[in-house]
């Protein structure tokens, strides 16, 4: 341990919800997208699932909104160090979309991509079992453009760069393929509880 002379740090909080190396951002919700926030309207928005599925399918805004609603209430964690507790997102569980598209037995991984061209890779297992959503509401209000509105992917148990803003689609693959940040040195899975920030962590 390399103790820094004279450093004490902020008062210790023993919060079991805080992953290692993270701090509580409280009321802040920093925006960290690397690209220009697109002027994407609900009419422009669509969401597609294809690749290793039985029935590739595209939903427009109205059809996606007509699916059974599902909420996430819990915490989110950003690789830059902040965590945010007790946030509430509304949308549809990704399982609902996948039930329509029917993943093939060979599908093991996914690439989620945005209407901006941003992409991120995930094991398929991280997207199923009620752990991922397509979200269009935050705190009961429409999701703001800078936070990914009209709709973003939400995978709250992984670092938040996996929760692609302005989600356009998910392609299922039989192998892992790095996305935007993963190709820029970030970890392929990004589990905050194992502090998988960068490639090799």
């Amino acid at each position, binding site marked *: *341990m*390399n*103790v*820094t*002379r*004279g*450093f*004490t*740090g*902020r008062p*210790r909080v023993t919060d079991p919800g805080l992953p290692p*190396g993270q*701090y509580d951002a409280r009321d802040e919700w*920093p*925006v*960290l*997208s*690397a*690209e*220009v*926030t*697109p002027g*994407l309207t609900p009419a*422009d928005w*669509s969401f*597609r699932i*294809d*690749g*290793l599925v039985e029935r590739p399918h595209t939903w427009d805004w109205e059809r996606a909104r007509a699916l059974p609603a599902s909420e996430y209430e819990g915490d989110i964690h*950003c690789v*830059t*160090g*902040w965590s945010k507790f007790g946030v509430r997102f509304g949308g549809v569980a990704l399982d609902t979309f996948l039930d329509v598209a029917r993943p093939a037995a*060979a599908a093991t991984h996914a*690439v989620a*991509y*945005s*209407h*901006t*061209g*941003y*992409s991120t890779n995930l094991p398929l297992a991280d997207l199923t079992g009620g752990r991922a959503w397509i979200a269009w509401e935050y705190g009961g209000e429409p999701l703001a453009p*800078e936070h990914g509105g009209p709709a973003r992917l939400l995978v709250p148990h992984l670092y938040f760069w996996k929760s692609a803003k*302005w989600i*356009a*689609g998910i*392609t299922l*693959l*039989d*192998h892992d*393929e790095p996305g*935007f*940040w993963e190709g*820029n*040195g970030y970890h392929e899975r990004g589990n905050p509880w194992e502090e998988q*920030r*960068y*490639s*090799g*962590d």
Partner: protein
Amino acid sequence: MTETVPAPRVPATRFAVPGRIAVSERAASVWQTATLTGIRRETPHAATFRFAVPDWAGHLPGQHLMLRLTAPDGYVAQRHYSIASAPDDSGHLELTLDHVRDGEVSGWFHTTARPGDTIELRGPLSGFFAWPGDRPALLLGAGSGVVPLMSMVRHHRTRGLGVPLRMLVSARSPGELIYAGELGAETTAVFTRSAPAGVPVGRLAAEHVAPLVAERPPGGWEAYVCGSNGFAEHASRLLVEAGQPVERIRIERFG
């Protein structure tokens, strides 16, 4: 090769994200000890900290690093900071840090740190907000958002690079303008609260951005925007309105 898996298809929209810059990633996963060798005041709220990092693998202008401080009880605080110095082979690098109110890490640097202290860092990180020096660069920064851009300006100068480079910086006042004494003809400063005599007070506007975008140097500008989210949204909108292609705008937002 019996199975054909379609490549992920990005829909043809008018939006795009820029491609990556080739960088070395071999050093990013290793924590290194850095020794503070000097502190230089820049403004009332910002100072530059110079470190000796003997095993530093080098970086590209615009890249950042992760830094950590450790308390006696094992508590660790880590933050990302942009690198201010241009790449060189001196075995040193510099960070310019704002004194953030209640900031446990910047607070330590501004009140406790002195030459000889050691901290740990890893990097350089990310190949996105990096400028290899091979293409015209149009830089827009506000507050301490000028830090990674200054690494690019310094690199351009020390290497005598021929590609065009221009910078627009926004500061509250002349006294808050980081690196004021080092800025040259490549830079135009905009002041939002108080300005020197004869210089208007106001926000970065189309009149500053559009003429530069319109210069359209051969190969086109690669635009780099760094600052708060509010500044980044505003500046990137001005760039798009002036005709800068979205896939050639790279944004680094504080947070």
